[in-house]
């Protein structure tokens, strides 16, 4: 639904994908994370009284928007050209680099995405996540990829050796590594380099194609909110570095969508 209808209803439905620290639901059912916390501020500024949080699989986010199962996604989804053809993105809310989650002690001695192009070991990725494209660009064979449904399944997948590593953003990796002693972030990680540039992602809020007004209103408020110290506090609280926060100002969505 677009902005007018949402204002009329007084409720906005926002989806998260259970990814710490981007957006997740804790045990009492409240949404947390860089996406949801910022989204809550924006909703308040837009005068929308109530938020209905929807937790869903990462790969259901875009279909869910298209099927109008929610109005907005606050999962810090990376802004990518092929996604821009399906949905609308706000301006970037954050930026983040890549990482690798490995079993404690890094038994397979993995330090980069490229390693999988040669060593025949398996790497896990989440269904629908953009690490797939990176790995494909780096020449990792399809047979080496294990698709998991959920971020948190990575701990089990990696610690049991079903995959040697989990390819995800650096924040996801450190969040998962904090949770369990059986896994850790791969040390001396080398950023993947695609088309001569180290890979960095810019995450934003996502909307259905028809929700242009909502997207514009969110952009306005987001721009204002990003100037406040509260915004930086939210990002750092969830483990984003200063550089990650600064990075979000370096690109516009228009650029990211046409790259």
């Amino acid at each position, binding site marked *: 639904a677009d902005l007018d209808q949402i204002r009329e209803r007084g409720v906005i439905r926002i989806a998260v994908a*259970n990814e710490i620290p981007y957006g*997740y*639901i*804790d*045990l*009492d*059912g409240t949404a947390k994370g860089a996406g949801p916390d910022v989204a809550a501020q924006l909703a308040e500024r837009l005068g929308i009284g109530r938020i209905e949080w*929807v*937790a*869903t*699989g990462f790969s*259901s986010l875009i*279909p*869910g928007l*298209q*099927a*109008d*199962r929610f109005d907005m996604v606050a999962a810090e989804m990376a802004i990518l050209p092929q996604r821009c053809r399906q949905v609308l993105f706000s301006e970037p809310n954050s930026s983040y680099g890549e990482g690798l989650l490995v079993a404690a002690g890094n038994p397979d001695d993995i330090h980069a995405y490229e390693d999988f192009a040669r060593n025949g070991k398996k790497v896990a990725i989440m269904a629908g996540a953009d690490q797939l494209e990176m790995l494909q660009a780096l020449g990792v064979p399809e047979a080496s990829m294990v698709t998991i449904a*959920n*971020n*948190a*399944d990575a*701990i*089990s997948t990696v610690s049991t050796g079903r995959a040697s590593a989990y390819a995800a953003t650096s924040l996801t990796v450190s969040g998962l590594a904090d*949770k*369990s002693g059986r896994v850790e972030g791969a040390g001396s990680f080398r950023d993947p380099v695609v088309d001569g540039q180290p890979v960095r992602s810019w995450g934003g809020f996502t909307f259905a194609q028809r929700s242009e007004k909502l997207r514009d209103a969110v952009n306005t408020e987001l721009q204002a909110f990003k100037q406040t110290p509260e915004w930086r506090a939210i990002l750092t609280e969830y483990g984003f570095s200063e550089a990650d926060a600064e990075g979000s100002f370096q690109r516009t969505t228009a650029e990211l969508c046409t790259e």
Partner: protein
Amino acid sequence: MDWLNYLDPLLQGAWVTVQLTLYSTLLGGLLSFLLGVGRLASHPGLRWLSICVIEVFRGTSLLVQLFWLYFALPLAGQALGLDWRLPPVVVGVLALSLNIGAYGAEVVRGALQAVPPAQLEAAKALDFTPRQTLWRISLPQAIPEMMPSFGNLAVQNLKDTALVSLISLGDLAFRAEQIRNFTQDSTTVYTLLLLMYFGMALVLTALMRLLERSVGRWRATGG
């Protein structure tokens, strides 16, 4: 104790599971009768429609049906310029009830065909219309015959509700997944999950037995 913390969200999920089971079993029961009677109808159009629905829903996987209704149906609607975006609860109840409706239809058909032909002749001799015969003679005699199978189907349905967690409905299995994702405490969460489903199944079985006994009273008194 950790598991005490899990109990509250799990119970919330269990309540959703109970509701889903209830609605889809009731709707599925209704569909069973419609399709089962339709399968025996003299009108060929009605009969073939019933046969197709039964075969499609018995012949494909429930999870495929769920995903199709959840992901594909809205797109099919879009292509036709229609809004077919059903809320997940509706998708869940619809898929579950169509599924047990298709299985139940065969049960209904079997039980109706097991009514002795002499009963139908007696009804005809008393000048009942075919519809009255169906409602007043055949169905009441067939229902006790169906009950044990329906009991099994109801339990099957309870188990199948777990699949709706995969379309993000907050049922018991979904809550368990969520807690495990958060706490990584697989053993406790899944043990609780299995036990809760088992408990619900036992209660459901007991309820179906009671129901079976009450609709079959005239048989129980028999010699």
